[in-house]
């Protein structure tokens, strides 16, 4: 059982337009049997935060190409590829930034 985790989400570069224009979100992910990973976080964001046009944000089970993801201020491509970074290991106040690249 993974404990609930607090995540600081930041949407920028226009991505916030899909979230009612709100850039920063402090959210708590509920506890669940498996550890949270990016793939699940994206699903959660889509269900709970995303206001419109999901196809502009996610594609398949990852973010749409062209949207950059930073985890604790570092490129998520450094973290063993896309949808699999394990959020729990990053500690309780992990921040995830998402911005389109252009």
């Amino acid at each position, binding site marked *: 059982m993974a404990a609930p985790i607090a995540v600081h989400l930041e949407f*920028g*570069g*226009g991505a*916030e*337009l*899909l979230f009612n224009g709100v850039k920063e979100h402090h959210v708590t992910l509920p506890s669940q049997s498996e550890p949270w*990973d990016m793939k699940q976080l994206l699903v959660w964001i889509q269900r709970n935060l995303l206001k*419109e*046009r999901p*196809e*502009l944000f996610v594609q398949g089970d990852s973010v*749409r*190409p*062209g949207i*950059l993801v*930073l*985890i*604790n*201020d*570092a*490129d*998520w*491509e*450094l*973290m*063993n*590829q896309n949808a*699999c*970074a*394990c*959020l729990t*290991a*990053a500690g309780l106040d*992990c921040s995830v*930034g998402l*911005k*389109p*690249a*252009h």
Partner: protein
Amino acid sequence: MCQVDEEYQEELERADGPSVSKKCVKCKEASAAVVIRAGDTYCRSCFKEYFIHKFRAMLGKNRVIFPGEKVLLAVSGGPSSCSMLSQVQEGLSQKAHKKLRFSPGIVHIDEGGAVGQSAEERQRKVSELQAVFKATGFPFLILPLEQVLDLPSSVVETALSPLEPPPSAYKAAVDRFNQTSSSDYLPPQEREEKSLPDVQKSHTQLLQQLMGSAKTLTAREDLLNTLRQHLLVHTARTEGYSKLMLGDNCTRLAIKLLTSISLGRGAQLAQDTGFSDSRYGNIISVRPMRDYSAKEIAFYNHMFNVPAVVVASLDTKTSEKASIQRLTESFVTKLQTDFPSTVSTIYRTSEKLQTACRSSSSADHSDRCLLCVCTLDTAVEKASAFQATLISEQLSQTKSLGCRNPGQSPGPVKPESAASTGQCCSSAGGEDCGRATSGGGCCSLTTETTDLKSLLCYSCQLTIRDMSSVDHLPLYILSEAQRRQRRAQMRDEISEFLLDDGDEGIYREV
């Protein structure tokens, strides 16, 4: 299979998790923060160094901008142009290693009117940008796109460039620059305080009518690009700048390149996407960001707090199949993700492209496209897409219109313009009837609007064809079109008296 894969990945994660353990490839000490290209991991400070160096190297290598020259930065507010602005600031600062030595100004074109934003929204964006621009200390101008409606025809004429500077000119400019103090680009006070000039509602409406007359998003985007470019060039000229600096990045240029090909702008590729673009004669556009990917820029801006303002564009929040431009964009961004090295390959291709007729730069400007001011590519061989389109158009023309225009020669014709030209002599009045003085009656008026196409390159013809009417085009375009048509007609009339018409290729068919 699937399961095996998943288990494998999970194990890897547990092994190193998101607390990054990869090292920077440059200093081999600090831990990496960003992956650029395929697999090159950089730490924060090496990434910064790499980023800054690339900008100076780009300008240094090309030697297009002279010391002391006035350079106008076109800043849309997006990540790329804001990053360019910050690089210029960085390069001019005292602590810079290889100091940049030109004198910059900023121009922003507020396109809110064309994309249907409310006056309040526009004002808010403008004040956000104003704050960013003020902080730079550079002189800046914020212009509503509506001003494009009041441009003079001179914009679409190619002012001839002050001849190719001799090799010694760069050196001379350096010497001159070293003698004068470098801090003379302080903003004039009264301009700094100027907010967005009041936009007349009627102007916004005219602009919206114009944008609305383009029936497809593809044509609308193309039209918007053209208008923006005209206003930028005009502003540079009237404000005494000789270079225009654009923020196109490598991802953007790869998109532009593929879009250009799809839109039939093959002949203009080199100028549309190269480092420098001299089609406007005395105003040369340069693209110093063309070696950066959108990702590098986004990371740099994020890490070093480069402010950017989100500016809505025509395709903001549109689906990926809305226009050719959007579709190409989604193709390229997908490529970037899946095959990171392909994108730079695409845009490097553009460096190898040369337009065959580029040498004829001395030619008279009436052989330039009326809209994009590139050299006309319509005087081409029989077996081209252009000719094929023409022939198929003529065929459908003869069917639908019959012999309505018996006097008309088999020149370029435009089917759906018949409707709009019908109105033109009764409603639009004076401006359109200018040609009546030169001898023709209503019949030749019909030919007139129709012939707008003969003044356009292949790609701009396609754009115009997607417009329900050309009557909403700004006056400077329409009146220049008339002037060129009158000239062509006159030349045609006296052609039999001319001894040598060998070099008038494009008039042969008129």
